[in-house]
């Protein structure tokens, strides 16, 4: 399991990692949109290997409204349907029941108002980093403006020296940053990010989180961020939903089991006591024992609690 036990509360000062570059970002302001999930359910057709029995639903009864400009983190254990929910939001997958609307109009098929940062980098291997990021530009962007925007984004994610490299010549973490830049290039009304920092080392992850906040502050789009990192969710989101199966519920399929609003304006102190309390609740929701209460230790303790 990844980094649920980051040594929080140490010297992670949010201000220190922030790049000044973000401040120069041109905001060709796309408006942010409301995203509304209405009783979403998703059941995949049974695969041949599983036999003729109907497969259980992956998601059921997910209802939620994401406000324009809000950053919503979607937490959940691996395989609970986080990616599926995000794909449904972007029109890459369609729900079995219910519907999603963006800005009041229903999503049918791939939605041009969204940009997706996939869980995998999915860069075109025959294109350079620059050309890959340029793929994200909205159609009809003037050439010069597009080139400047791409260079700026590549600078922002710290890939300037690798701008001319092909994806195979850069590391997985760099590829994921390039993929993030590609999604940002779209300047979308709704930004869908599926574990965008999953392949990054701990330090780069913190930097990229701050970068995302900067970009969001510049162009406040609606962000749906899938993560399995509780600290990341607490650091970035206005609101967090936890997907899973409620206790005492024998039905299959994940739904929203917790929803909480994160207090405090961003960027947040990564070590605050208030967040520590929420962290404990979320970890408990993910089925992780927090190991803190029994000994009367505050969860803000710098002693890492290994959940393995």
């Amino acid at each position, binding site marked *: 399991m*990844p*980094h649920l036990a980051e040594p929080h509360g140490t010297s992670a000062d949010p201000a220190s990692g922030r790049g000044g570059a973000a401040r120069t970002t041109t905001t060709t302001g796309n408006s942010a949109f409301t995203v509304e999930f209405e009783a979403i359910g998703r059941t995949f057709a049974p695969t041949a290997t599983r036999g003729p029995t109907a497969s259980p639903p992956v998601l059921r009864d997910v209802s939620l409204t994401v406000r324009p400009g809000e950053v919503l983190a979607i937490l959940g254990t691996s395989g609970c349907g986080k990616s599926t929910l995000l794909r449904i939001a*972007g029109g*890459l997958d369609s729900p079995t029941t219910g519907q999603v609307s963006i800005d009041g109009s229903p999503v049918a098929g*791939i939605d*041009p108002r*969204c*940009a*997706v940062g*996939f*869980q*995998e*980098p*999915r860069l*075109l*291997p*025959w294109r350079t980093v620059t050309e890959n990021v340029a*793929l*994200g530009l*909205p*159609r009809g962007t003037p050439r010069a403006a597009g080139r400047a925007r791409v260079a700026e984004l590549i600078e922002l994610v710290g890939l300037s020296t690798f701008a*001319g*490299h*092909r*994806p*195979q*010549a850069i590391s*997985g973490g760099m*590829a*994921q940053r390039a993929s993030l830049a*590609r999604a940002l290039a*779209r300047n979308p009304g709704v930004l869908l990010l599926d*574990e965008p920092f*999953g*392949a*990054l*080392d*701990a330090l780069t*992850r913190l930097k990229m989180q701050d970068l995302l906040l900067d970009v969001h502050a510049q162009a406040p789009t609606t962000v749906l961020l899938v993560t*399995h990192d509780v600290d990341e969710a607490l650091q970035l989101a206005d609101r967090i939903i936890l997907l899973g199966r409620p206790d005492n519920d024998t039905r299959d399929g994940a739904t929203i089991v917790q929803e909480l609003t994160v207090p405090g304006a961003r960027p947040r102190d990564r070590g605050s006591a208030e967040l520590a309390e929420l962290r404990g609740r979320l970890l408990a929701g993910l089925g992780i024992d927090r190991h803190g209460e029994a000994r009367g230790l505050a969860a803000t303790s710098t002693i890492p609690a290994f959940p393995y």
Partner: protein
Amino acid sequence: MTETVPRTLPPTSARTVTDATATASARTAHSPRRSLTSRGSVTLIGGAILPVLILAAWQLTTALGVFTIAQLPSPAMVWQAGLDLFASGLLGQYAAISTQRVLIGFAVGAALGIALGALVGLSRTADIMFAPTLGAIRAVPSLAWVPLLILWLKIGEESKLTLIAIGAFFPVYTTVSAALRHVDRQLVEAGRAFGLRGVRLFASVQLPAVIPAVISGLRLALAQAWLFLVAAELIASSMGLGFLLIDSQNNGRIDRILLAIILLAILGKLTDAAVGLFERWANRKWA
């Protein structure tokens, strides 16, 4: 530890990885010294060693009289036969007509192969409708077409070109359709998610992804084209290297048979090298 997401590679993974890293490192200022085996002169000399040895062994055995002249003429006699035929103008004519047949048949077959391969590889409907039939036609041994082609098209150019085109069609059709079917779905989906559709999607994602496969299909097709050329010319022709073979067989001219075989080897290798150059250019651009 951090969850490392498996990076998706195109079907040609291993090759393109080395290619890309090679070009990447070549671009950086301090590229490492090239190994001995990657130098052009070394590959040229290395490749020539075996032919020279074979030639020497041939010369030696004939000089020592291991075989009779009727069994194996000496290299000099083959060379002389070549000079005679060249002087009479026949050699140039035969080589030219054979090459022309291969190139035309190959071009037609490969073009059809790419078109139908793209159709079947991209469209599920076309796959269902065409793939079984084409598979069955492919299963017909190619020489089985010869009697039919001769009756329908007579012993003219058309029957030979058609046979060569059939031979060139299938390697291209098979590799293109299979490669398109196996284009990384995640990449195609990413292309769609960023607004690409139809022709633009094909040109930006699917086509570049299958270029290496298309080219290896073209190389196979070219080899097949030469194979079918000889088959066609052996059976019914009055010109060409295949005709030279069958004619020399009837006259007992082993020197000319050897000459034709050597010419076929050289011409086949030359055309293959041309496709190889195209392949290197395309890999630099796309892979």
